[in-house]
């Protein structure tokens, strides 16, 4: 059997090996010294998620508007922000008042602190 080593190494491989190993150890010892991409990576994911959410939300809102509604003049379209949602529950209450007992009315008034004027105006 031949005992010669058929394996070779690149030229000067062992000359700079010590420096490369020290660099590698330094990196392992100081993991905080990250490059800019590594630092920004988690934030980039967050930014991408927010952008994706905004894009999808915009897409849904744009396609959800009915076609005939789109053709109406702007003046005829009631801005959803002007709808008084605070009165919805009150209106529902007054519509169904005849079916409600006095005790329930008193309880409702004390719970919601409705002014007497407002109550009279709806009678």
């Amino acid at each position, binding site marked *: *059997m031949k005992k010669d080593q*058929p394996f070779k190494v690149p030229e000067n491989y062992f000359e700079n090996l010590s420096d490369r190993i020290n660099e590698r150890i330094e990196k392992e010892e100081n993991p905080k010294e990250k490059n800019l991409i590594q630092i920004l990576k988690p934030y980039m994911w967050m930014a991408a998620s927010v952008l994706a959410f905004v894009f999808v939300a915009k897409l849904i809102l744009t396609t959800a508007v009915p076609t005939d509604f789109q053709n109406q003049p702007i003046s005829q379209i009631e801005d959803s922000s002007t709808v008084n949602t605070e009165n919805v529950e009150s209106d529902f209450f007054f519509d169904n008042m005849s079916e409600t007992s006095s005790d329930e009315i008193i309880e409702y008034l004390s719970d919601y602190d409705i002014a007497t004027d407002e109550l009279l105006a709806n009678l």
Partner: protein
Amino acid sequence: MTQITDEEILQLFQDKKTQSEAFSLLVKKYQERLYWQIRKIVLSHDDADDVLQNTFVKIWKGLLNFRYDAKLYTWMYRIATNESLTFLKDKQRRSIAFANKDVEDMLIANLEADEYFDGDQAQVELQKAILQLPEKQRLVFNMKYFDEMKYEDMSEILETSVGALKASYHHAVKKIESLLKLEC
């Protein structure tokens, strides 16, 4: 110039100020021996380079806690051997081409593709025969036949008795001889 002793390196390593310098001395003293130990297990140069770096990182991490229960170089050889075997198993697991094959098939392919393998046909056949040995016999054969390592040192590195190592080497030689005869 006399070479610095392991004890002197370890003393320098204990001091934070001289730690880095001590480690560079240690790397320079043992880099070739450890490289060849690793290279004979993983065969390709690129893999040996990766494993050698991993080995020295492990040595760095463990050196402060090193006690003289074993010789420093047998302790480092043991790390290098374990790192090499772990590396091969991981590499085979990650490889799509060799996922369902033996590590030895992957090693033969690595050897044939390695630009730093410069063997003639007889050396290729010898390497293939070595790869047909069971893992422990392969390690013993490489350490004894190529490195001419003492059985006592081998015993510390492989944590096996001298008697068992001698038997392993004897079986390995017989098997390789018969494999090479078959090839002729």
